[in-house]
């Protein structure tokens, strides 16, 4: 008899299919792991099961009863509780209030809070989680791990029958992980079914009885963990080897001797440490790793968006001064395509022309201010060069498709002819045809002598485009490999955190 059953769940965002016909069955009193690469659809599935999102099709039942989809409160009420990866807490409130807000205990029909009773219960729950911090300080002043435990405590307050944990150990220390596992064990004894999402495969093997693997939004299989080995599991996550036609023809480029970008010992706590890398002219350097490994943070630090605690950054033989800003890096010839195109890459309501000329307004202005003609010319030639499909240069950027929007983001930098492009997920949410075009453009830029730092969670993409690949794991560089020697298995092996003392 299964407790929670999801059948044929599908969900699309815009044009991209996040989940297609995924089914999963969770038995009471068991721990069921959910594994998959970045973007495989794990978080979408969790959001649907916990009532945050509604699926396009499919149904979810608990003990045969359909659950109210898309209504967090109602789903919690029937005993399905999720602890999200990012802790859901109220920073200004103390722990007791955080646990009980929305489900306060009161006397006289809601007119007088039972503060003493709530406090006692909160004490009990946090104690059972092995936490001993003061319940009275605002949660915003607690550590990330402690906040995660508060979030966990909130879940335990419910009569829960199904507990969904999304990467609960990501910010926990070994000791905290151990008390979390003990709690999970206790809940399991009580017959609670636990859906456990983790990138730490050792935890999966140690804790879970069953594992479901998601790949590209589809179910790649459900297996008892006892019948799998670590490498088999990784193979299932990656799937069949994807053929990369252009990989064979990959140029073993004659590297020019001087690197465009050289980084020595860069550190920004707590996101990355001890980063050393070089990118040469005409080279595409791939940065792979899991979400949260520190890739985007490194990109932001290089471009001057975030401060660096320590380390030297050399650009074309010049060391960047301490406290450099984006103005400095732009003037020196860096460009960045940010991860979040809609929020950081474009001014959505502004026209294609405005977006394309935004970084170059000074160059396009005369002593009387901006001239219309040079801007028109610049935007016209860029639209042509980048192959942007738009009704006119005056159309708003938001009226374009994702692929064409991304070409604008690239194009606005191309005009400045930068020496280094930092590309953070340049093809996220871009359809297949446009993806191909973006790839070609990136290769053209490299052929033109620019250095390119490419961040991508799309493994075939990074394997295809890069000359060399660095893999990051928990803020550190775990390995470097020439792309013709690299495989998805190797990169994933490096990207996954190693066994930790928590499990010993």
């Amino acid at each position, binding site marked *: 008899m299964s407790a929670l059953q999801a059948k044929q769940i599908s969900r699309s965002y815009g044009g991209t299919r996040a989940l297609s016909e995924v089914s999963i069955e969770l038995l009471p009193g068991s721990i069921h792991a959910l594994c998959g690469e970045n973007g495989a659809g794990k978080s979408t599935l969790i959001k649907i099961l916990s009532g945050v999102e509604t699926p396009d099709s499919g149904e979810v039942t608990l003990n045969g009863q359909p659950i109210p989809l898309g209504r967090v409160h109602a789903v919690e009420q029937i005993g399905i509780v999720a602890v999200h990866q990012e802790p*859901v807490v*109220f920073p*200004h409130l103390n722990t007791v209030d955080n646990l009980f*807000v*929305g489900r306060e205990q009161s006397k006289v029909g809601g007119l007088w809070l039972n*503060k003493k009773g709530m406090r006692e219960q909160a004490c009990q729950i946090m104690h059972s989680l092995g936490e001993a911090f003061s319940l009275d300080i605002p949660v915003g002043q607690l550590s990330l791990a402690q906040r995660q435990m508060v979030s966990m405590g909130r879940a335990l307050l419910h009569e829960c029958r199904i507990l969904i944990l999304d990467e609960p150990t990501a910010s926990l220390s070994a000791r905290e992980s151990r008390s979390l596992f003990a709690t999970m064990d206790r809940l399991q004894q009580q017959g609670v079914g636990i859906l456990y999402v983790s990138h730490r495969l050792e935890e999966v093997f140690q804790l879970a009885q069953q594992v479901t693997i998601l790949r590209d939004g589809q179910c790649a299989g459900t297996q008892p963990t006892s019948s799998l080995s670590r490498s088999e599991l990784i193979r299932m996550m990656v799937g069949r080897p994807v053929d990369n036609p252009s990989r064979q023809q990959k140029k073993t480029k004659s590297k020019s001797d001087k690197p465009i970008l050289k980084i020595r010992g860069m550190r920004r706590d707590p996101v990355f440490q001890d980063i050393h890398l070089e990118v040469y002219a005409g080279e595409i350097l791939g940065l792979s790793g899991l979400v949260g490994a520190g890739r985007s943070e490194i990109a932001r630090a290089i471009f001057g968006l975030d401060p660096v605690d320590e380390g030297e950054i050399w650009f074309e033989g010049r060391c960047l001064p301490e406290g450099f800003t984006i103005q400095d890096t732009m003037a020196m010839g860096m460009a960045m395509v940010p991860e979040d195109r809609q929020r950081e890459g474009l001014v959505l309501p502004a026209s294609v022309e405005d977006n394309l000329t935004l970084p170059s307004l000074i160059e396009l202005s005369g002593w009387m201010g901006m001239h219309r003609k040079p801007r028109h010319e610049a935007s016209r030639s860029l639209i042509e060069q980048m192959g942007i499909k738009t009704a006119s240069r005056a159309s708003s950027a938001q009226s374009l498709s994702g692929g064409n929007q991304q070409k604008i983001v690239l194009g606005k930098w191309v005009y400045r002819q930068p020496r280094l492009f930092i590309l953070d997920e340049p093809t996220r949410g871009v359809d297949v045809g446009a993806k191909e075009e973006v790839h070609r453009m990136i290769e053209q830029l490299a052929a033109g002598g620019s250095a390119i730092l490419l961040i991508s969670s799309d493994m075939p993409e990074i394997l295809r485009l890069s000359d060399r690949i660095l893999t990051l794991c928990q803020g550190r560089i775990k390995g470097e490999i020439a792309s013709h020697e690299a495989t998805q298995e190797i990169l994933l092996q490096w990207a996954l955190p190693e066994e930790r003392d928590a499990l010993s």
Partner: protein
Amino acid sequence: MKDGFQGLRLGKWMLGLLKQRAAGLFCFTFLALGLVSLINPAFLAWGNLRDIAVQAAPVCIISCGLMLVLVLGEIDISVGSMMGVLAASMGAMVSATRWGLSPWIAVILTLILGTLMGALNGWLIAYLRVPSIMVTLGMLTALRGVTEVIMGGTWITDLPPGIRYLGTGSWMGLPICLWVCAGVIVLSTWLIHRTPLGRRIFAIGSQPRAAHLAGLPIQRVKFLVFAWTGFLTALATLVSVPQLSVVDSGIGVGMELLVVTCVVVGGTSVSGGTGHLSGVVFAVLLMTMISTLLIFMKLGENATYWSRAIQGLFILGAILLDHLVRSKKSS
């Protein structure tokens, strides 16, 4: 690096100050009182202190509501114009030459009208999701216009004694408005600390996304808080307007700024999530004292004109302090 260290110490000191905003304001209020009474002992006369308290009471009553609005992360700048409409309609209701209703009915209708106006704000903001600054800015202008329509270019001078008693009468030696104000403070304290609704207001203001995930009724809470503010505005109108025998169309002008100033100076975060009632109460006292203080300091006629400038400086200072403390915390 050295500068950073200095900044940290300064930040710690400021953090300490913010934590004890109420205590700081308390000391500041009494320091100011002491200084002024050294210059002019007449300031401490019972009559003068009572006058200050009577002036502060309506501001304090509205501030108790507006504080909750700010804790939610919203704003209401329509309270001054609401006061205008309520004063005009109350005057018209009781005036023998106009509708001539009994004072009791006028009081009840005024409270209902205030609540309805607040509820209209709340409905537009919570359910239609219009930004509160835009809604209440519109109301600020619209309701002032309504006031002028009701007044019809004249003054109401014949307030009957029944309604005048609310402004001039006293009970057990204290003016009615002080009793009402005390009642509102007690009620607000209970609401904030002892009811689920109070805790939810702070939770929603602290992290709206988390509140959504926790299934809190965000819209209903916002609606209730705006309606409550409208009710309190009506209450403040009832105890303050009948202090004078004349109602004109300028009642409540600038009230919204004074109230927002008090709430922010009292340590309520402009970005939501935190606020202490005690800090707000002392801020109200301090702010209402400023103009009187300047008169008693015998700085000449010009001095009184400075009171607005000083109010403005206070609000800027309070926001700056709030901002500094928060940027220190996040780093």
